[in-house]
């Protein structure tokens, strides 16, 4: 079974055969992979002992090894093909929404509809966990819609402001 695995931004072609043999980009690796319960795994690879924590969230993975966190994506050949056909990826056009990263209280909306804004500009001030947090625009654009007002409590992932 052939997989295309992306760690951070680097891609690996990992092939796992029926007997569990592993090759990476065509080179074979001596691998012993053991589930230790929960999210904890032990990997012994070419005599190197590696403890890994693997967490799967909505089809993408977070891997922690030696205090370092990796973002991972694993695609088999078929999904890889599908993704290539449908495009995917992002560009600077279209709408982006600034969502509430956590439940909280809107202290202030510091932009107006129709306003032109820069990337990194503060858009909304959200109070949560006793702190005032400034939510910033991910890219430059024009404020299309404001969905909340000061004094309102919002749930996590609520769309606050839409930018076009």
């Amino acid at each position, binding site marked *: 079974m052939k997989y295309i695995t992306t760690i951070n931004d680097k891609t690996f072609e990992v092939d796992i055969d029926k007997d569990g043999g592993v090759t990476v980009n065509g080179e074979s690796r001596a691998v012993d992979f053991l589930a230790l319960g929960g999210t904890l795994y032990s990997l012994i690879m070419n005599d190197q002992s590696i403890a890994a924590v693997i967490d799967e969230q909505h089809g993408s993975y*977070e891997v922690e090894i030696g205090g370092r966190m990796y973002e991972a994506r694993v695609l088999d050949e078929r999904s890889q093909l599908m993704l290539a056909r449908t495009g995917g990826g992002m560009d600077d056009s279209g709408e982006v929404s600034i969502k509430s990263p956590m439940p909280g209280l809107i202290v202030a909306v510091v932009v107006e509809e129709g306003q032109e804004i820069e990337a990194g500009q503060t858009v909304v001030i959200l109070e*949560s966990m006793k702190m005032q947090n400034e939510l910033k625009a991910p890219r430059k654009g024009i404020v299309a819609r404001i969905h909340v007002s000061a004094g309102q409590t919002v749930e996590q992932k609520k769309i606050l402001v839409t930018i076009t």
Partner: protein
Amino acid sequence: MREQTKINKVLIANRGEIAVRIIRACRDLGIPTVAIYSDADRAALHVRYADEAIHIGPSAPRDSYLRKDKIIAAARKTGADAIHPGYGFLAENAEFAQQVADEGLIFIGPSPSAIATMGDKHAARVAVRRYNVPLIPGSEAGLSDDDLMAAARKIGFPLVIKAVAGGGGKGMRAVHNEANFKEALATARREAESAFGNGDVYLEKLLVGARHIEFQILADTHGNTIHLGERECSIQRRHQKLVEEAPSVFVDDDLRQRMGQMAIAAAQSVNYVNAGTIECLVDEDKNFYFLEMNTRLQVEHPVTELVTGIDLVKEQIRIARGRRMGPTESFLQPKAWAIECRINAEDPYTNFMPSVGKINTLITPTGPGVRVDSGVYSGYEITPHYDSMIAKLICWGEDRGEAMLRMRRALEEYTIMGVKHNIPFHVNLLNSFSFIAGKIDTNFVEQRFSMDTYENAPTDEDLEAAAIAVTLYAHRKRQLATQVVQPGKRDTSNWKWYTRYERMNR
């Protein structure tokens, strides 16, 4: 001299790691404990650790942990005869301390009048000035916006706006020039109003390149007032401490002696009893200024415990019982070195944005020289109602080098998944040459530290190992999925299936 009393049961008017810390001291002393909890904290660790637990209301602090009446009623109901306030919430509320005393209960902390004087920043300055304690130039409290503007011009920029009722960096803003003053003042007032219900602020000159160094005070009712040496707390962000250590690389024997004397004088100016902390700013020329007194146990108290061998919470209880405290001499020679990293559910890669959610994996560091004071466990859900500090990792060693190396090792062992946290920040900080050399001041993190500088990129081997692990994980899951019987063919769980099979073969 106060008569000795017995404490039969302690109610802890707090939550999180500090509630757990206090419960542990009580258990060490054989004193039963009562926890209080809000709706959001039913599953919290402190509830599990206590002998009894009383629900005191909805999740918002003002409806639960700040409800004096409900807390006192909980003490009455359970027969607790003493209340430990921890830090934050009602810990520095003189009215609460008075109410507790009026009910005939013991408040494990200083007198209401000492809390009131030190809690009012202006009154505190007046009180300590009589004892020749050096102060930072600043303004009066209770001024209008226009008067503050005039005062600001007189003091000169840069300066700091501080909440009169403040603490923990809330309602505090540094202003570097006149143009930003008005906006900063409005923000500070707004924050102070929402955090303390009091929007009054005052001004203080900002000392450039100053260190935040504080002294731990311990005083009993038998006339003993001592200090337990200093803590260096210059690693801060937005006036929130992130890393503390004891002793400070900057404090020599002479400075420790002089600052310690000043700290004792400041405590004596309000007839202070129990544990407290004198916070100071120390400039590059080793001039020191009184900042404020925290009339409670500090978050960072463990570093002092590790270099003195004193259990501060146990001493607090002993003092509250009217007994003579254990140590009676100030500590002029620290025994070792201790460093504390505050573990916050905040993402250091996105401007320290707080993070909420369920901790699905928690591996806590252990081994020689490592202490963890934590309020969370695997499966615990972090809510947005309280502050983001979830644990403290404290490491000690013979000297600063050993403490730092242990901290580095312990941070590497520490695994928290499910929420974003600031462990990567601490790892990078411990790699920074300035920190290693002890060349730090209160602006270090905000002005001279960046997550990118000390972040060494993972090697190709690191990435490959991660790739192999995650691919094997995904592969195995996929294999399992294909072995599952088609939907509808077998609708009961495998466990039921298994027991039926067992029965058939009996």
